[in-house]
């Protein structure tokens, strides 16, 4: 089979809804702290930690520890690899959603 179905462009690291949403939230020009991201995505600490570990291992997001006043904060940003991977993944999803036939 020579046809290239868009599903082949889907990224394994972005296949779960939570990981996809994390990358959708961390656009190119935004930095979000852990607690805020958890609230934005309406998830819990452990699920978000797991998703972040996977994405971080894939090199798709960067984790930075910091302080605001005396309180520790964990800041998350998408890496350029993550943004590129997300772009390809979204394009594949759009092709699947549109029901496009496999490319020759």
């Amino acid at each position, binding site marked *: 089979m020579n046809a290239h179905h868009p599903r082949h462009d889907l990224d394994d690291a972005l*296949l779960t809804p939570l990981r996809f949403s994390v990358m959708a939230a961390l656009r190119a020009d935004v930095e979000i*702290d852990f607690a805020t991201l958890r609230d934005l995505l309406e998830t819990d600490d452990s699920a978000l930690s797991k998703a972040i570990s996977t994405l971080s291992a894939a090199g798709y997001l960067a984790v930075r520890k910091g302080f605001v006043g005396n309180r520790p904060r964990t800041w998350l940003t998408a890496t350029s690899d993550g943004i590129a991977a997300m772009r390809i993944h979204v394009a594949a999803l759009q092709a699947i959603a549109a029901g496009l036939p496999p490319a020759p």
Partner: protein
Amino acid sequence: MNDQSSAVGPQPGTDAAAELLQAGDAVGDRVRAAIDARTQAVIDAWMAVAVLAYVLAVMLSGGGRAAIGAGAGGTEPTGLAFAFLILVPFLAATGLEQGLRETLHSANRVRPRLHRALVTAASMLPLLVVLVLVVLWQTPRPLALLITTVSAVPLLVLATQSARRVRDWGVRRPSPAWRAPLGAASMTATAVLGLWLGAITALSGTTFMIASSITVIGFLFTMILVRDSRWGLTRLAGEWGRAQWTAFGCSYLLVLGLAVVLAHTSWDLPTVSIVGGACVAAPLVIAAFRPAPIWTA
């Protein structure tokens, strides 16, 4: 939401793909709204500082006393020039603020209506109090200062709250990855804004009253006429970066400071105003050629 594959299987079908895309868009909208809310708090905090500086300048320059008393003999600049000197940068600041608000994606949803009304009322209160006490009633300074300070307390509280929200906010823009010079129109408009403020400052201490008035009226008319064009303050506010905002802040405070100095100094007024005008113009003219960040969304 958990970190498991969707119920439809490891790879999405047509409907599941559409659902994922919609969920991604919804998350993006929430993040944009959060960024807007932080920007709104930044605007509120800095506008409070601008209003307080303006009120202080009116108070210390003697407002109406200068406007009515000085220049009676026709050999000195009238106090009206000092009054305009305080008013012009404040109007420019409000024009820029309006432009910045218009860049927000969800301008109307960011702040509840009650909060917006509170901020407006808190900003208007010290402005009205200082204008009535100092300009209209010529109230003795200690009393006017006391009443104005009390009237500024709500604004101070709101400014502090906004600053704290900005600091604690969990969504923010990191250092920009891309910077580029301003577009030709914005670069020119920024430099012209600086030169115009500088000219108004320089002429305010001289006896060229007609030139001074024409410069001020011309500025106000131009500001209104080009408001929504690519030369207008609205567009500038959307394109400026930290360098340009800092430069405007410096020029703003310099103009207000000079208005106070010019109203009281025994130095040679034309010299002070011309040197001051050059100092007011310099930051914006330099900043016009500095790069500004480019955001992808």
